[in-house]
């Protein structure tokens, strides 16, 4: 069988595997029976290596489609390979929105569950898994319908379990009502990190959605200057004209790989400067479309090619409120290292869910985009690992491509609990991935 090179959105660490396209549950069962090293893959939006398995078999979930009827209370059952984009195309005109969305619509429902994605509303609404009513999961020892009530251990191990408990074939999701396709957005500019963090602590609870973009390349008094955008769904009464239009596909795209090194300390500094100055100092109740507000990453297709052949890494960690200072220290370490880093995303996390490998814990999360190339970068990120670990925090598997196995157990102290559930349904460790091997998640 021919093999394909697979890599994550960061375009680092390609590995070769046989790719199958199961179109039915029977196909998935057969693939799991016939092969020893298997992992499911959606749209490949994880940044690192969780949706690939070198030398093994990768099951693309894209043929597992089907959008069910949305019930009057907003519950819908979807094929695992349906993307949020495809769901919204149907649901927005009917007045329903996804309860949680990451910065891109181009993720599959199963991927959103496996990475337990979060969005701008985590501080109030939690992560994706909280809104899932039921999953259908094919494992090497059988096919199960699991939910928070029915085999909650397997359900919650699958939420955030990075595909290692089985192959999800369908997802039943609770949607939320919207009256319009607009969000009313308040934007504020802050000249340093302390002031933006203060504002978020102060008022985030008044907004359903909140996120800050932080400039990690400015040193001194303006270190961590930021733009805070917060919003709520516009009601019909808020607007003169009410529309419920599906998001449009992007017209812009990156046709070729940019030269590695295009995004260097100088060019990134200029970008950050322009971006910061172009934001309004203070603006209230500006109507923005759902896609402008929620999916800025979808504005330009294949934008990851801008990072060139060497690709880029994301570094996202979270710490509790008692360790808010770790955010400050991390940005200080980064800005003093001279390593180029695009606008970082800073956000407040609300309550955690019961998933043993689910990433969010209440407090702060910071996500950084870093082009691969600078010699100092691996070391700087190793230093950040130590800081995060010391603060009792953790980093996000869906973003990671470079952590070592030695720190995983301390970051995810419930790993053994997860493994016990995994081994109940997958005693031979058939489900594995390059991520699982790199971080010793599965054990050998």
């Amino acid at each position, binding site marked *: 069988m021919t*093999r394909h*090179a697979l890599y994550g959105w*960061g375009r*680092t*660490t*390609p*590995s*070769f*595997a046989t790719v199958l396209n199961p179109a039915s549950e029977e196909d998935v069962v057969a693939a799991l029976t016939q092969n020893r090293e298997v992992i499911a893959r959606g749209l490949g939006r994880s940044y*690192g*290596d969780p949706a690939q*398995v*070198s*030398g*093994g078999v990768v099951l693309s979930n894209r043929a597992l489609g089907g959008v069910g009827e949305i019930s009057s209370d907003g519950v819908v059952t979807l094929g695992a390979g349906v993307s949020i984009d495809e769901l919204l195309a149907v649901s927005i005109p009917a007045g329903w929105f996804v309860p949680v969305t990451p910065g891109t619509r181009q993720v599959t429902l199963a991927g959103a569950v496996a990475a337990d994605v979060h969005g701008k509303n985590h501080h109030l609404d939690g992560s994706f898994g909280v809104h899932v009513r039921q999953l259908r999961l094919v494992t090497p020892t059988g096919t199960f319908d699991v939910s928070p009530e029915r085999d909650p251990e397997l359900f919650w191990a699958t939420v955030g379990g990075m595909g290692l408990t089985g192959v999800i074939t369908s997802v039943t999701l609770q949607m939320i009502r919207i009256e319009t396709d607009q969000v009313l957005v308040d934007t504020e500019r802050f000249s340093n990190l302390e002031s933006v963090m203060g504002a978020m602590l102060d008022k985030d609870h008044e907004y359903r959605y909140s996120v800050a973009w932080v400039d990690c390349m400015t040193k001194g008094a303006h270190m961590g200057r930021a733009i805070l955008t917060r919003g709520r769904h516009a009601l019909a009464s808020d607007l003169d004209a009410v529309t419920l239009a599906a998001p449009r596909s992007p017209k812009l795209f990156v046709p070729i790989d940019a030269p590695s090194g295009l995004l260097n300390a100088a060019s990134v500094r200029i970008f950050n400067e322009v971006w910061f100055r172009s934001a309004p100092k203070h603006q209230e109740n500006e109507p923005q479309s759902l896609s402008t507000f929620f999916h800025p990453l979808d504005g330009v297709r294949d934008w990851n090619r801008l990072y060139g*052949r060497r*690709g880029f*890494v994301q570094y996202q960690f979270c710490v509790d409120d008692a360790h808010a200072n770790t955010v400050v220290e991390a940005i200080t370490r980064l800005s003093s290292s001279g390593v180029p880093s695009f606008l970082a995303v800073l956000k407040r996390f609300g309550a955690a869910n019961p998933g043993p490998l689910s990433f969010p814990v209440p407090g702060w999360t910071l996500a950084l985009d870093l082009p*691969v190339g600078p*010699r100092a*970068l*691996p070391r700087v990120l190793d230093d950040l690992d130590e800081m995060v670990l010391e603060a009792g925090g953790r980093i996000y598997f869906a973003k990671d*491509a*470079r*952590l*070592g*196995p*030695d720190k995983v157990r301390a970051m995810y102290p419930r790993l053994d609990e997860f493994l016990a559930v995994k081994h109940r349904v997958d005693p031979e460790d058939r489900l594995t991935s*390059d*991520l699982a*091997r*790199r971080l010793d998640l599965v054990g*050998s």
Partner: protein
Amino acid sequence: MENAFGQPQNVVVLGGSSDIARSITKKLCAARTHTVVLAGRNQDLLDAAASEAQEYGATKTDTVLFNAEDPGNAARAVTESFDKVGAHVDLVIIAVGLLGEQTEIEDNADEVARMITVNFTWPAAALAEIRHRLIAQGGGRILVISSVAAIRIRRSMYLYGGAKAGLDRMCIGLADSLEGTGVTMQILRPGVVRSKMTAGSSQKEIPFTTGVNEVAENVMKGLSSDELVIWSPPILRYVFAVLRHLPAKLWKFIADR
């Protein structure tokens, strides 16, 4: 698995007790490498290299014995090394080589054959086994230690230079053949390196001679790039771009000095 920065976790080193190999292993372990299998012909030296790797951060080390004078054992040595890693092998380093004193062996057919075997035939045989194992596992890297002596051959070291030239050229073709398999290959071409291999040699210290530490530094830089050839020191790329095209008379004059 290797991470996004090209830092390997599981490494096999054939010729693992050589000074250059030890220096590279130390730096790899200080970064991310935790499993190292060292193969070579002297158990004591391998054990010393293994405990050194642990000092630098390796959590699992093992050793494999082989004699590079017998290419018949190459497949066995590679297989045993992979088995002892027991997981995805991210990087295989071939640091097998023998310098010798040419004037003492050039009239002896057996000695000449031995020289070519250790420097070329054994590594080539090992590469056959490494190649198919890495392709089967869907990816991995190979680093072969060649030499600048392979680029333009000096009359005082034509045996060593010739054997390395064979290996070097073969590896360039092998690297091309690996395209589309996920396996990548890099060739290290160091200049003269102060090490136990060169210590007994009558060759005098020539310009651009470095220590093993500098070689290892350049290897670390090279591994995070996608350059086919890693030169150490890097300036030798340009020096040899000139030297390889010098008229023979001039070359011999320079090479003899």
